[in-house]
């Protein structure tokens, strides 16, 4: 107790005790501070990884040292393989998003506004969505072959599922008061859609898109595991086959960073759209 009082006395001298105790809180600008805080955990993981490598806790063939992974990263980056594979994968993700996103949005809106669609379509859709992508692949190969179309469709399906579910949920969860106001104002269907429905469900739709994006990365690895000879997912599968797990770790880091950046972009887009959307946020 005495120690506590002593501590309090020492800190209490300043009118802003927390700022005095943590001077760096004010010394650094907020964005930089956030960045540093976000990087703290990855830095700790790398430190632990390095420590594990030095102490030989895990066999070097399974978890190569950070320095080796860095060398491999540089080698792959200089050789152009990394960028080439990354661009191909990004293109696949982009096509998958472009196909699955609008389709999922349309289906989700339909399910959200029409009770009939809900009763006719939703059980089937939920049953289809419950089947993991891997189970579809032999059938999809029969229909689409093994070329690019197959990959884009598998990714599009992965994106579509969360988009459909969250869009229809977002629409159904619009507060009753808004709907009643729209009815009283006798809004035309189009106005109602653009002025009420879409803006009100925007946050849920976007969380669906962001979830869809992370599903897209999982699907990417699955489709590149089969019938691909390029792309970042293929690079990882190939690295494991060659027992060069440094390549796999480079892939993990690249996919992780790319996913993080894309998520950030989507969040920016959401903020921009919410500002633009009238009467919301």
């Amino acid at each position, binding site marked *: 107790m005495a120690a506590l009082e002593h501590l309090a006395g020492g800190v209490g001298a300043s009118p802003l005790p927390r700022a005095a105790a943590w001077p760096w809180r004010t010394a650094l600008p907020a964005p930089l501070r956030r960045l540093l805080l976000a990087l703290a955990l990855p830095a700790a993981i790398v430190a632990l990884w390095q420590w594990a490598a030095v102490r030989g806790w895990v*066999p*070097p*063939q*399974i978890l190569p040292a950070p320095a080796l992974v860095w060398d491999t990263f540089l080698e792959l980056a200089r050789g152009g393989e990394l960028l080439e594979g990354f661009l191909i994968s990004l293109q696949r993700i982009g096509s998958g998003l472009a196909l699955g996103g609008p389709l999922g949005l349309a289906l989700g809106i339909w399910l959200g506004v029409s009770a009939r669609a809900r009763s006719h379509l939703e059980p089937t859709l939920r049953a289809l969505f419950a089947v993991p992508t891997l189970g579809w*692949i*032999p059938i999809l*190969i*029969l*229909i689409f*072959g*093994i*070329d690019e179309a197959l990959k884009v469709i598998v990714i599009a399906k992965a994106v579509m599922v969360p988009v459909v579910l969250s869009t229809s949920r977002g629409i159904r969860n619009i507060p009753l008061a808004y709907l009643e106001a729209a009815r009283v104002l006798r809004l035309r269907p189009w106005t109602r859609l653009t002025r009420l429905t879409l803006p009100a469900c925007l946050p849920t739709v976007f969380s669906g898109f962001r979830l869809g994006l992370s599903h897209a990365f999982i699907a990417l690895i699955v489709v590149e595991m*089969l*019938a*691909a*000879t390029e792309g970042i997912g293929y690079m990882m599968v*190939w690295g*494991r*086959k*060659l*027992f*060069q797990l440094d390549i796999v770790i480079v892939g993990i880091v690249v996919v992780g960073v790319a996913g993080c950046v894309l998520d950030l972009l989507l969040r920016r887009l959401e903020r921009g759209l919410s500002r633009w959307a009238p009467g919301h946020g």
Partner: protein
Amino acid sequence: MTLWKHLAAFALATAAAFGAHAQAQPETIRFGGFGQGFGQPHGVALLAIAQGKGFIADEFKGTPVKLSFEYFTGTGPAINEAIANNRLDVAQYGSLPNIIGKAGGLPTRILASYGYTTVFGLARKDLEVNSFKDLKGRKVAVAKGTVLHWALLKALQDNGLTLRDIQLVDLKTADQLAALSAGSVDAAVGSSSLLTLRDKGVGKVFYSSKDQGAKASGFGGILVSETFEKQYPDATQRIANGLVKAAHWLGQEANRDEAYRIWTLSGMPYQAFKDDYDGVSLKDAFNPRVDAFLLSQYDDAIDFTKDNKLIRNDIDVAKWAAPQYVENALRAQGLQTYWTNRAALVARR
């Protein structure tokens, strides 16, 4: 407190180290191999016979040594990872993952050859494909980085072609079947599991390595981890004794049907083994010797993996091989002349 903990840990470690040196036999020997899925504790090839007929267990009769057998669905890479994680002492798997693991610094020794597996080439029924020559410019599916990839190259070379003359598509067996049925690829090179398409009338077999024998077939080794071999040379010898007995048993024509039946425990159908081995001398196919012929095949596969950038380091095959255990067993069992000494296929480096 921490000092005591450290001292206790040190005492334990030294006790364990001394104990291990004093111990002539390991507590358990963990065997592993490629399997056919379904999580079966049964496999195929030489190790499955040595296990199924109890040849290895007999060698350890009267000792407290326990034997465990585990067969992996994920084959090569999964087995290499299991050895690296010290979960396996002895493993039977294909030559390409053998090489890839060794080049990656995995401490293994080649204890025995596990036998030869037939490689098949299957083309879509509507195509005029009668030999590898007809594959020029066509889409061919194969599981890259496996011994089948190597076997494809060998067969192409025999027909004056290279891997550049075809469009290679990297597919696993199950997907090869779908892709061939859909017509997305023209042909596939694989194991007897491809033959289901022949039976369904989708494809026709245009090639079988049976005609060419061991030099064109899939091959691989039963590898022992170097730490195990150094620590337990006696147990390593006993394992080799059991493997040689199994190979000798397999070599007798009367046992063929029983061998197929032991292999079906792996979950593969009886027909697959008939397709693989009918008309093939099991004595020749399951020659366990780590001889000049086997080493020259490893040399050849190493050159292939280097040319295709599958490995980063070279391997000294002569140092990798541990032929003495099988040779000792052959002498002890009076089988020195049962299998003739095969010469190297190509001049050894």
